[in-house]
Every structure is written in structure tokens, then in C-alpha cells.
């Protein structure tokens, strides 16, 4: 595979390109999907392909080459396309290597895992023991190797292997809960715990009544807080800022959250998103996006960094910068203290369909799903349904008053796009709306 990466870069240079990057990946991932407490389909992928980035006279072309037996023809085609394209005056090159990378190990027991059905069963059983009737979800074994080469002297290899399970447990259509399990060591993978969590929330959410609009103090479970962290980390890349797709634009150095909030990106830390380098080969590292509520940096590749007169943060993607793994720094509250401080409010456990009316102002709404609970004097007094969180992203984060000591690693379909470490959080005066009569 190294040879393929070398050949792509060498061929690009031979054809006149100034910069070239090739990331040849081998994907052997495996998945089980389940529904109604049974396996509905199992999937296996066996793919070897190359992500390619090349620049010819500031003309930028990105590609995925799937047929590596026809590399030379593919490269000639890409350079031909590049020559017909237009200059990008903002393009400022790729990082200069070589770099030294942290030594990372993967769990061979994960790579060797051929059957995940016991893990699915453990999760389902956990939920059923709590009173759930119907469980659905996905189990994933991720197994990917990456061979990176660039025309600027970068050589990198990374083998990433992890396990992931997402389970939704239902007592009825409107009484459900969600649980997540993530691990990079088989011994740390606990799908039963995820099933128990989903089942407990579902059982507690029995017989929900329609909620009422208003402003409430809200306890955010780690899964839904993960979605709100994703809205910060996922909109902190410089490309989104320039495209008008981020409420963080023009806010560097300004308050975007309460002092309790520190959000970092760190692809080098232990997580299911851990990696050695970004798409340019820059070693990944920890950086605070928001520190004590102040926006400290956008996420950059070499080109966007130059435009913003700073240095790359090691977040290059194929075209635009992207977060790797997000961390919300834990607070000093216990989970119980978070709930006790919620005198008259809600506990939200999950959400989906987050959409903006204006990315500039941050006005958005998102729809809580799974358990929605009414809290009075710190206790659950009933379950709600049919509400929507309608607020402003910056305003909501400024109203966070407490974070728990413990964090969960979460990632979820569509909403939490990268692995995220999220605590419980308490926010004041969160806007809630509902359908009109």
C-alpha cells in the first residue's frame, strides 16, 4: 500500500504538480444492524482506495481513486482536469514534513473479532432487563489502515481499530431511550451498560404528556450535550467561517459560552477517533477551541491558517479543516448536584434534526427525542413529548452554569459527527416550543 501512495505522489510531481497528497486506506470494517431485538442485516466491507489531493499552478483538485490498478491513467486524468480548472489565489501549500508521530497501538483482539452478535445480544438483554420491549441499533467494528505520503516529505502510517454500539430501546413509540458504547480495547467495551442506560430511560419515559412552551432550566444528558458540542466544534473550522456557515465568525477572543465551558479538539487523545496525523500529515494535537467561554481559535489547515495569519492546527481534511475528537472539560459537579440544582425544569437525553435559521446569528432549533423529563426540585416528576428546543447557540452555551465531573464518550448518527467527550450540563432559561393547536 505504501507503494501505491508513493506512486501517486511521484506521478503527480512528474506530471508537473507542485503539491500532492495521497492517503491510501484499507477498510475492513464490519457492522451488524438490529431491530425488533434481532439482527436485520450484517455488512462487511473490503475496500482499498486512495484519497488524492493535488495542486497544479494553484489549481486544486481532490479525488478518490477506487481502482488502484489504473493509477497512472487516473493521475493523468486528474492533472488534465486541474489544468482546465482555475487558480485558487487563497491556496497556500501543504505542511512541510517529515514529522515524527506518536507511537499508537491497536487492540489485535478487535481486529480479529469476526462475530459481534454476542455484543448485540448483551446490549439488547440489558435494555430488556430494564423493561424495554423493542431494541434497535448498530454494532460496528472499525478496522482501517492509512498510508500517507505527500510531496513535502511526509510519510505516515496509522492503523485505527475500535468498537462502537448504538442502541435505542423502546417501551412504546413515545417511550424510548438511547445508549452508546465506544472502546478502543475489547476489554473496555461495555454494550450491556449502553443497553441498560437505553432501557432505563425508556422505562422512565412511560406515558409522556405533551410538553408546554416556555423557558426552562435544562439538564442535558451527555448524548444531547454531545450534539451541542458538535455544533461548536463542527462549526469552528475556518472554511465554514468563511462560507457563512458558522455562528463563530468574527467572534475570536469573544465570549461564546459561560466561563464554565472549555471545549478542545484533540485527535491524539485516547478515543475511537484517535489518529496520528491530519490529511496533510501534520501530527494531531490538543488545542482549545473555547477556553473558559472565550473563542480561542478556528480549526485550520495550512491554507486557511495563512489566510487567518496563524499556524495550522493540524485539522486538515481533504479540502476543508475538520475536528477530530471533541472534549468538553468536566466541571466539578456530581451528576446528582446537577439535578438538584434544577428546581423547575427539564432533563433532555437526546436530540436530532438540528437546523439553523441563520448561521450568522446562531438561531436554531433541534428536536429532543427519547426520554424528555419534567424535573421539579431535582426529581423526575413526569415525562414529556412533542417539544422542540428553539434557541440561539451562543446564548445557550452562555447560559450553561454547571458541568459534571464525569464524562461519557459519545458519537451518534448525524448529530454527534465526531467522537465527543461530554459531561452532564445544566443550562438556564433554554427556549422550548411546541406545535400549535
Amino acid at each position: 500500500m505504501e507503494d501505491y501512495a508513493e506512486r501517486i505522489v511521484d506521478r503527480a510531481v512528474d506530471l508537473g504538480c507542485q503539491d500532492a497528497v495521497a492517503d491510501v486506506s484499507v477498510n475492513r470494517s464490519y457492522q451488524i444492524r438490529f431491530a425488533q431485538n434481532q439482527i436485520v442485516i450484517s455488512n462487511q466491507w473490503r475496500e482499498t482506495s486512495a484519497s488524492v489531493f493535488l495542486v497544479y499552478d494553484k489549481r486544486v483538485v481532490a479525488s478518490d481513486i477506487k481502482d488502484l490498478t489504473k493509477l497512472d491513467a487516473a493521475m493523468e486524468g486528474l492533472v488534465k482536469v486541474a489544468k482546465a480548472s482555475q487558480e485558487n489565489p487563497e491556496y497556500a501549500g501543504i505542511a512541510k514534513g517529515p514529522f515524527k508521530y506518536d507511537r499508537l497501538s491497536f487492540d489485535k483482539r478487535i481486529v480479529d473479532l469476526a462475530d459481534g452478535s454476542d455484543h448485540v445480544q448483551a446490549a439488547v438483554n440489558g435494555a430488556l432487563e430494564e423493561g424495554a420491549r423493542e431494541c434497535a441499533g448498530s454494532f460496528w467494528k472499525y478496522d482501517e489502515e492509512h498510508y500517507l505520503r505527500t510531496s513535502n516529505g511526509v510519510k505516515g502510517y496509522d492503523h485505527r481499530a475500535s468498537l462502537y454500539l448504538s442502541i435505542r430501546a423502546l417501551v412504546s413509540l413515545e417511550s424510548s431511550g438511547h445508549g452508546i458504547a465506544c472502546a478502543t480495547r475489547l476489554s473496555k467495551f461495555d454494550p450491556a451498560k449502553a443497553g441498560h442506560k437505553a432501557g432505563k430511560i425508556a422505562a422512565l419515559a412511560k406515558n409522556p404528556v405533551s410538553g408546554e412552551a416556555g423557558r426552562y432550566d435544562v439538564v442535558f444528558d451527555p448524548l444531547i450535550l454531545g450534539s451541542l458540542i458538535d455544533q461548536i466544534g463542527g462549526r469552528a473550522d475556518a472554511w465554514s467561517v468563511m462560507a457563512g456557515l458558522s455562528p463563530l465568525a468574527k467572534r475570536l477572543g469573544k465570549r461564546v459560552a459561560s466561563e464554565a465551558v472549555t471545549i478542545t479538539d484533540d485527535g491524539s487523545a485516547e478515543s475511537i477517533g484517535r489518529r496520528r496525523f491530519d490529511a496533510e500529515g501534520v501530527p494531531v494535537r490538543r488545542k482549545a477551541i473555547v477556553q473558559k467561554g472565550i473563542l480561542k481559535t478556528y480549526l485550520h489547515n495550512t491554507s486557511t491558517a495563512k489566510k487567518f495569519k496563524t499556524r495550522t492546527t493540524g485539522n486538515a481534511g481533504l479540502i476543508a479543516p475538520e475536528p477530530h475528537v471533541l472534549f468538553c472539560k468536566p466541571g466539578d459537579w456530581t451528576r446528582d448536584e446537577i439535578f438538584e440544582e434544577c428546581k423547575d425544569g427539564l432533563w433532555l437525553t437526546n436530540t436530532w434534526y438540528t437546523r439553523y435559521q441563520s448561521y450568522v446569528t446562531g438561531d436554531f432549533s433541534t428536536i429532543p427525542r427519547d426520554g424528555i423529563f419534567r424535573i421539579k426540585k431535582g426529581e423526575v416528576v413526569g415525562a414529556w413529548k412533542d417539544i422542540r428546543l428553539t434557541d440561539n447557540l451562543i446564548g445557550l452555551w452562555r447560559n450553561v452554569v454547571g458541568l459534571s465531573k464525569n464524562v461519557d464518550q459519545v458519537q451518534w448518527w448525524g448529530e454527534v459527527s465526531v467522537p465527543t467527550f461530554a459531561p452532564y450540563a445544566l443550562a438556564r432559561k433554554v427556549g422550548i416550543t411546541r406545535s400549535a393547536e
Partner: protein
Amino acid sequence: MADPDLVDFAVDYARQKGATYAEARYEHQVNEQFILKNSVLDALYFGEDTGIGVRVLANGGLGFAATNSMAKADVKVIVEDAVRLAKAARRKDPIIFAPEEAVVTNWSIPQAKALSDVPVEDKIEEITHIDRELVDLKFKMPARYFQQGNKQIEKYFANSEGSRIKSFSPRVRLFYFLTMAHNGNVEQTSQNYGWSGGWEAIREVDMLRRTVEEAKSMQNSLKHGKKSPEGKMDLVVGPQVSGIAAHESCGHPTEADRVLGREAAQAGKSFITPASIGQRVGSPVVTVCDDPTVEHAIAFYAYDDEGVKARRRYMYKEGIINEFLQNRETAAILGTRSNGAARATTYSVEAIVRMANTFVEPRDWGVDEMIEGVKFGVYMKSFMEWNIDDKRYNGKYVGREAYLIEDGKVTSPVRKTVIELTTPTFWGAVDAVGKDLEIHHAGFCGKSDPGQALDAALGGPTMRLRNVYLR
């Protein structure tokens, strides 16, 4: 095109290995994307995605495996994977597929001007030209982002029942995202247009006119827009709004896999159950259908990814829940036949139940007629923010381009009109449906795990709703 013998081999080999049913789908997708941000061509993406996916039934379980290698030895390995995985499912009740006739055919979408014949320079010029026209308007637009995409999809499908289907689908898209500012206020829009066919799309969909008109409407809204009135009033919605409502609150809840809980952990379930067929969900003038056979709509197809012939499906008929979108697996569970709704984004994922081109069936009203019949209300032509809960019961659409209607006339623009209604309240309030079917609004519909963002047309006719709460 791959060697059809290799695809046929995969099917035969799966049967040899113990599959009771097998299918193999080869795809070759040529995909180009031109990304223009603030007048700079940021990047050009060009990719060729080729591979083969094999799905089998064995011992009552379903297994799927995919590779991008066209070597026979590698195809053998994925067939063995698929059969092994299917057998490992150990289901209590076996998965079966509803019966279908074998089909041998070859279909393609005509191109007046083939995408492969259009030089890269011309494609780039199309979006840079639109961008220049916008800049020439001299409005304050701090961010402009365009993405022009072209896809050419070749497929060869074979199954163990004798179906052999070749197809070719070219598709053209234009996406734009604009930010406009005026006196400290900001308005944003995001639009996506699509066409199945060749480069004639640019002319047929008239992308330049639409973009310039939208920019002018944004400027008008920023300069003259009032706060939208709150309370119960009449509402006229344009094709884009009727289209998103049809997609979100009719198409999704009538997907049979969602009804049956197969997507419960991701895209969710549905407020509709199998027992809901025949129940009223809207007024008698509301018929919502999904039709893959609408010529040149972005999600056109003649046969689905299980080899079933496509046809128009009537999910809501005269206000009554009438029909689900089905693939062969859901149809067998519900004791019916597939109506050809199985689709996959690429060779590397299973085909599941999907919408194609979903719209309210037009009737005979003119737009002016509908507006003339409103004493006081809002005419919402387009939206920005929208969402709906996972059971598809509580929907929200916030206006981008909207106007006040006073005494039967469109008057001043209004900003951020909020429709937040239940599905039956929304569809039950419709009293008039226009004849102005507009089908080229195109979205990406998200579903499944791994996520499959699939082409879907989201257009429709103008509609009038009576006495609904807006704010």
C-alpha cells in the same frame, strides 16, 4: 462497465455457498463537484467510484458485503462474507422477500447534451457566471458559496431469480448558500436544484434566473421586511414549502421499514402503523404521491435496486393514508408486493426503502386565485430552518421568502414566519392545491447506517391552508 460475467458469477457462487437468494450490484459512478466560495474556485472534486455489492439471504438471515476490487478472487471473498454473515444472524423468524418476476432490461436517461461532452471550463464558467451576476447586483453579500455537481451512474444488477438490469443515470445539481446583510440585519438562504439528464439542465432549470431572483428577494426582505404576524390566519405556501412538507410529513412516515421499526435507532419510527391505512390525515384535496418515473426529476429511475419496476405510489390519497413505500423485505412482512422503492447510494451499501420524487398532486387552482381568497394571511414561498420529530408528527418550517397577504393581495415582505404544526393539523388545513407543479427542488434525503444521503426531489404545487397558527 464491469464484466457482467463477474457480477453473474457472484450470484451463482452465492447460491453454491448456500444462499437461498442472492443479488449483486455493480456500480461505476463518475462524480465531479465544483466548489466556489466568495468568487474563488476553492477546489474541484473528481472521483470515479467503482465496485460491487453482494446481498444474500441464507438460513433466514440477510448478509451484505462489498469490495471495490474487480478481481474474481476478491469477489469470491465478499460472497463468502455475505453468506457467512447471513447464516450467523440466527433469527427467530426468517427474513423473506415478496415475490417478483425476473426482469431483463436496459434503461437509461437521455441527455440532450451529454455531461461527458461538456468541457470542465464550461462547467466552471456556469457557476462563476452566476456568481458574477450576483456581485453585479451590488448587494452586500459577505459570503457566497456554490457547489455544482454532476454524476453519471452506471449499474448492472443481477439476482438469482434471473433478473439482469443495466442502467445509466446522469444527474446535474446546483447548490448555493448566500448570506446577505443590510443595516445590521442578516438573511441567509440555501437552495438545491436538480435534474436527471445532461447539461441541458442549466437551461431547463434556469439556475441563473432563480439565483438572481432569490438575491433580489433577500434584499427586499432585509430592506422592507416586517415582523411576521402572530395568530391564526390563512397561509399560502409555495412549491418549495409544499415539497418539504410532502417529503417530511408524508413520505418519511409512510416508509414501511420505518413503520416496522427497522430504522428506529437512526431515522426513527412513524406515527403511522400498519393499522393506519384508511385513516384520515388530511383534507380531501390532499393527495401526496411519490413517483420515480417523473421525467428529468432528480430521482428518476425505471427499476429500483432490487430490480422492481418503478411506479407512482399514493401515500396520502384524498386525505386518507393509502399506501406505504415498500421494498421486497417490508412487503413480505406486510403481506403485499414491493412498489419499487428500494434504493442505495452506492454499490457499497444495501438498498433500503427510500422516497424518490415526492410531491402533492396538483389540482386546478391558480396561485393568484388562492391569494385572492385570503383576507389576511401569509404567503410563504421558501424556508430556511426546518425540522421534524422522528415519528414525523411535529414539523417546523421557518420562512425565508414570505409576504403578507391583505385583502387578497400580496403586500410587504415578512421575516421569519414560523409554521410549527402537527402533521394532521398541517394537511387537514389545506383547502386549495395549485396546478403549478414545480419538481426541480432537489434535496439529499438522509437515512440508514452507514448514512445514505440520496437524491430526492422536494417540489410540488402551491397550496392554501386555512386558519392555522403562525408566529
